[in-house]
């Protein structure tokens, strides 16, 4: 009979998602203000572009951290399926936490989103692969679809975080265990 890890993973999941959710939120807000306070032409990158320049796929490693913490806390070897569960829950929570924190921030600075949107439009226009007509079309679309667009964006972002953290959770389950896999006799 193969060993089955019955320990609760919630403390690891919550810890990892809080760390990554808060750090991601801080990076988002910090780079958002950086972009707002500089000339768009000189920045020429969106806030997510700047976060990604620091480290691409950063938010995808929350699942791996949660698995690492769980394995170390209980000193167990976990199966990849359990790593996947830990990873996907962590990813979804990172998305929810960062979304909630960004929206709470709007109470502190109500103009943050609209200022950021204006800068985003300027950045998109500065890319040079759009005609004047296309630039105007996009500016109109961004202003008209603001609220719904943010909800959809948060939804898809959370799904993306969930999928990638699921995969890094599986990888974590593979890396953070002994050479003898649990499924091997």
């Amino acid at each position, binding site marked *: 009979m193969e060993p089955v890890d019955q320990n609760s993973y919630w403390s690891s999941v919550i810890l990892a998602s809080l760390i990554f959710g808060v750090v991601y939120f801080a990076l988002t807000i910090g780079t958002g203000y950086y972009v707002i306070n500089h000339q768009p032409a000189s920045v020429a990158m969106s806030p*997510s*572009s700047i976060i990604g320049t620091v480290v691409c796929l950063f938010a995808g490693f929350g699942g791996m951290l949660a698995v690492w913490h769980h394995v170390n806390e209980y000193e167990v070897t976990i199966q990849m399926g359990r790593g996947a569960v830990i990873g996907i829950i962590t990813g979804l929570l990172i998305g929810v936490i960062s979304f909630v924190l960004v929206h709470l921030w709007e109470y502190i600075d109500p103009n943050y989103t609209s200022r950021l949107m204006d800068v985003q439009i300027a950045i998109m226009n500065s890319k040079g692969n759009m005609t004047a007509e296309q630039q105007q079309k996009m500016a109109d679309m961004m202003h008209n679809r603001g609220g719904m667009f943010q909800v959809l964006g948060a939804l*898809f*972002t959370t799904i993306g975080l969930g999928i990638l953290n699921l995969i890094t959770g599986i990888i974590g389950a593979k890396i953070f265990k002994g050479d003898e896999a649990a499924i091997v006799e």
Partner: protein
Amino acid sequence: MTFGPYEKRKFLSGYFLIVGMLAFLLFAALGPGIYTNDPTVWYFSWQRMLFSALCHQNPGRSFYINNVQMAVCTRCFGIYLSAFTGSVLFPLISVWVKKKFKGGKILLAISLLIIIIDFLGNAFGFWVNTDISRFITGILLGMSVTYMMSADFYNSVKHSYNMEELVWNR
């Protein structure tokens, strides 16, 4: 130890779930350029939103399809492309040659080291990395991860089936 029908089904469904997700990520990474040539669509596309927290999506460091930027940068595209390809190829090859691939963790460490060197060299001005170099380092990372994971696939197949009676047995 031999797997029963439940374990076999669980193992196969888990494998195909992962391959399916990687195929979905690869498809999404291509961006909206596969069905439109209007660059304004990019910002509002679900593909961009899906990867917005995971990739810098820098227009200067991305491939374009039909004048529309892909949803991820060149390095991330290399990762998703090779992760999907490797997840299909490496497990099949390991079963075909009846050999468990070893040294996956070392390969993963080497591929990460190459990316770090490439990033730091570019950041400190020793060289300028290109779309192709970033794409290749991404491919190495994706390949090394799937190479490492294929060892577990081989273990599961070994404990699920009689290797001598597999339909693709040579």
